[in-house]
């Protein structure tokens, strides 16, 4: 393989090159580089404050970077003249706190963006809502309000809302951290199914067992740097003492 097989899709889907970012005097990202290829699942792990969530948020430009380069689905995210809305049509993001819109039903939560951003017709958007809700196993919750759902159901609905925009890559920012173990399982199952469907994903998680099962590649962040990276096997046989200590205490 000397050339890219498909010239219309420049690989990789996500690429960070030597990214630096500080909050005031605190350096959170100190020369971070990694790439995510099409269909790949990249799991970011590390202690609180290691910069993993910041790195993830930079991909969707929720944080701006000080130096370096980020390219996502062909969008130069680090370019100040970036078309933000075009980037965000290609990138889906799911947050720890679900962030469903409380004044809208689940169906309205899902159809809002396809209708107002993509100009999709109401009927088409409603079909789409039904499809993505079936994908996360919530087809019966179409007309309920977020507060009527359990945490796990809300998070699945939030995933469905992102899917309805048919993103090219999905970002998951500690999506199970607010859930108790019982509800965590149902959300992880949905994410596993997405991975099996070939969705490109970047996720920050503290669920080490889950990470081992789903990750094509693992990036261990430590003090704002990519400290160790490799296949999911590094979680069971880490090369650096820092990762060994992290998985030792994190399991």
């Amino acid at each position: 393989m000397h050339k890219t097989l498909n010239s219309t899709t420049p690989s990789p889907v996500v690429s960070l090159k030597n990214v630096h970012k500080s909050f005031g005097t605190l350096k959170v990202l100190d020369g971070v580089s990694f790439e995510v290829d099409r269909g790949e699942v990249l799991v970011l792990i590390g202690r609180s404050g290691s910069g993993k969530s910041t790195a993830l948020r930079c991909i969707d430009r929720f944080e701006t970077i000080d130096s370096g380069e980020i390219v996502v689905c062909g969008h130069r995210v680090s370019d100040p003249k970036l078309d933000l809305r075009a980037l965000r049509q290609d990138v889906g993001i799911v947050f720890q706190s679900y962030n469903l819109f409380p004044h809208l039903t689940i169906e309205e939560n899902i159809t809002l963006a396809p209708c107002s951003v993509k100009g999709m017709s109401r009927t088409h958007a409603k079909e789409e809502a039904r499809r993505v809700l079936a994908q996360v196993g919530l087809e019966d919750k179409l007309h309920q309000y977020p507060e009527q759902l359990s945490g796990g159901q809300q998070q699945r609905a939030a995933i469905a809302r992102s899917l309805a925009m048919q993103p090219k890559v999905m970002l998951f920012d500690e999506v199970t951290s607010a859930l108790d173990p019982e509800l965590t399982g149902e959300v992880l199952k949905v994410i596993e199914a997405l991975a099996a469907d070939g969705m490109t994903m970047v996720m920050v998680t503290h669920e080490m067992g889950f990470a081992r099962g789903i990750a094509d590649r693992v990036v261990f962040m430590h003090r704002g740097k990519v400290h160790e990276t490799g296949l999911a096997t590094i979680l069971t046989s880490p090369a650096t003492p820092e990762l060994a200590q992290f998985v030792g205490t994190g399991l």
Partner: protein
Amino acid sequence: MGGSLNANHLMFLGHGALWTIGLSLIGLLGGGIAGFVIALCRISPSLIVRLLSAGYVQLIQGTPLLVIMFLTYFGLPTLGVTVSPLTAAGASLTIYVGAYLGEIWRGSIESVPKPQWEAAEGLALSRSQRMTKVILPQAIRIATPPTVGFMVQIIKNTSLASVVGFVELARSGQIINNSLFEPFLIYTIIAAIYFALCYPISRISRRLERRSGPASLSLGTA
């Protein structure tokens, strides 16, 4: 001269009360529109717009409504603009109410949790779509009790329009008293009418506040 309170006097008071209601509605409508614009300016991405609107709010909240009335009614004619008492009172109330409602509504918009903005941004909604479809519907719920509560302030403040010769409830009471010389009786009636107008609104506000939970904004009183 002299005589006792009769039906004509009561008619006159009723007429004044209607103008109090009318002026309140003008203040609410004009001030509502001004307040909405100010609330949006206060959270504008542009620093200059934010500073200007914050300056306006500070200036108006630091000025008595009475003085604003004097300025519009007696001040403007010296600049060549003659205004009727109704226009002066209506404009003054709009300026004044706008500053307060603008702050109440800015607070309501800002108390919609930040992650709601982020979620809307993540879905590629434009700023105006985020505002109209995600933030404002939630902010309106938060803003309703304090806004209804502030209507009581508007009604009471319309009494200041009497200083520019506008005959609303307080002024009509003064006029009747000038012929009957029964201040205690007449002003008691006036007070009772104001109370009858304001009390139901306070009750509604209280009820709305209870329904929407503990989050309520404290108001600057006039």
